[in-house]
């Protein structure tokens, strides 16, 4: 897909640009995805940021505040909400309604829609994360990475987590025959993954080695670990990044193999 993108003619680039623009318009016209991906994490940030107890460093959490622990979780949440909720819903609806079929009769392959959707998801994720971190740092004293190295690690972790969650979303869209099945599959995948990002309760408070080990192997847990380290000024080590990369590559390869245009 990337080599194809490089060999686009100016006309094709214009077509792709229009496709992305129309997908953005559609996303804004039915902003459910935006509300879930941006609104919910922002609301949680405001709630926990406003409670004095959660912003105070806690010995139980190794000397950091609940708030600082929870923001990486919210970042992961933005990515799984977009990757697992918005993307497969939209793609399976397009397949059901015949949008992909309509496009397959033009010189443009329906995979363009998929690429455009993914692009829009990345844009939405970037906007959502910027708002989240901006609000966190500006209003609630969120600790940002301390140096350029920390930012770089955070960026790599975010990109890999986004790639893994979008890949899982594509996989759901690939195997789901209808929007209803996509929705059910999303729920099955989403809630456990959200748990291992620490969304319901920080995993550090559970004190279970088994839970921690499972989290390390999952994209949300690995994403949380990498982001938590980067924002806390530590090195996450190679392990979480490798786990994320493996999920990203595996899900994309499988999704592109299994995807049906009709």
């Amino acid at each position, binding site marked *: 897909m990337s080599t194809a993108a490089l060999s686009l003619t100016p006309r094709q680039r214009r077509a792709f640009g229009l496709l992305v623009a129309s997908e953005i318009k559609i996303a804004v016209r039915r902003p459910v995805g935006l509300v879930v991906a941006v609104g919910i994490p922002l609301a949680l940030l405001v709630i926990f940021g406003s409670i004095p107890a959660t912003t105070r460093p806690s010995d139980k959490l190794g000397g950091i505040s609940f708030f600082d622990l929870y923001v990486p979780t919210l970042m992961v949440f933005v990515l799984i909400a977009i990757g697992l909720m918005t993307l497969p819903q939209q793609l399976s609806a397009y397949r059901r*309604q*015949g949008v992909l079929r309509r496009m397959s009769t033009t010189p443009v392959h329906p995979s363009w829609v998929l690429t455009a959707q993914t692009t829009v998801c990345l844009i939405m994720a970037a906007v959502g994360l910027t708002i989240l971190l901006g609000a966190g740092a500006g209003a609630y004293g969120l600790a940002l990475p301390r140096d350029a190295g920390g930012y770089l690690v955070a960026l790599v972790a975010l990109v890999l987590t986004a790639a893994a969650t979008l890949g899982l979303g594509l996989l759901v869209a690939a195997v789901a025959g209808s929007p209803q099945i996509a929705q059910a599959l999303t729920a099955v995948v989403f809630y456990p993954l959200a748990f291992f990002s620490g969304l319901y309760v920080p995993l550090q408070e559970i004190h279970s080695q088994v839970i921690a080990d499972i989290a390390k192997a999952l994209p949300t847990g690995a994403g949380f670990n990498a982001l938590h380290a980067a924002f806390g000024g530590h090195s996450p080590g190679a392990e979480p990044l490798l786990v994320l990369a493996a999920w990203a590559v595996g899900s994309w390869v499988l999704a592109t193999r299994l995807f049906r245009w009709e």
Partner: protein
Amino acid sequence: MSTTQLIQTYPRASVSVSSDRSAPGVIEVAHLRKAYGATVAVDDVSFTVRHGEIFGILGRNGAGKTTTVECITGLRTADRGEIRVLGLDPRRDRRELHGRVGVQLQESAVPELMRVGEAVELYASFYREPADGRELIAMLGLERAQHTYFKHLSGGQKQRLSVVLALIGDPEIAVLDELTTGLDPEARRDTWRLIEGIRARGVTIVLVTHFMEEAERLCDRVALIDHGRVVALDRPSALAVAATTSKRVRLTPTEPFPDELLSRLPMVSSVEHHGPEVVVAGSGDLVTAVVLALHRAGVNADDVQTETANLEDAFLAITDETTHADTNGATR
């Protein structure tokens, strides 16, 4: 007997098409076959579409029309057979084909929250030398719907938008599948005028339909498809003329009479009762024979009407024949 004669129109037509080597067809299909698992959608379909004509593919629902069209337009790979469209292999040369052939398919749409004008602009950008989108929108009477979301369009407007999108690439061939299904009669007539207008621009048109009237009114030639096979291929009028050999007489007898009275006549193929009315089907000088036979038996007939055959009769006659042939084949 009459239907056997009809079946013979098919080989005649196919010979005339294949002998027309001086003007190669823009679409050539030979022995196309496509099955989905155990279900054979298209069994053996061959035809040639000539430049500039309106070619009809006519058949009942499930006869294999859409699958045929999907193979021609490169959306499906045929199991067997040869297809050439503008000299291209629809599967291998898909992208070039889709730049030169506009397709309007059933069960296809643009996103619900896309506006008409946006869809036209977007689709125009897919083609090297697109047609003028505004002109097409005007031609199809969609100016006032330009800012309407796709999901808020009426059925007729959606159909007209899909015609705009099929023509936006300025195609050499337009394939229109069940274009007028779901339209009211007036909208249907408007669409017919439109199709004639498109042909006047030099576009070859493949029209898939199950409306006889539509095929009769619009098409230069029609391929009748039944059970995945071409059962007849000719001008609609020629097919209808062939069907006049199987005409019908309607009459209301003054008193009841046994069916054998008429059914034993050599030219009668069936006798049916519709309330007080009797419908006699057959061939040759049917009216005279029927009225005479009734008269001899002392039965008078009021309100005797003969029906002129049209394409619908031809279609029914031909597809009935193939259905019987299938049944015989199965019991044999």
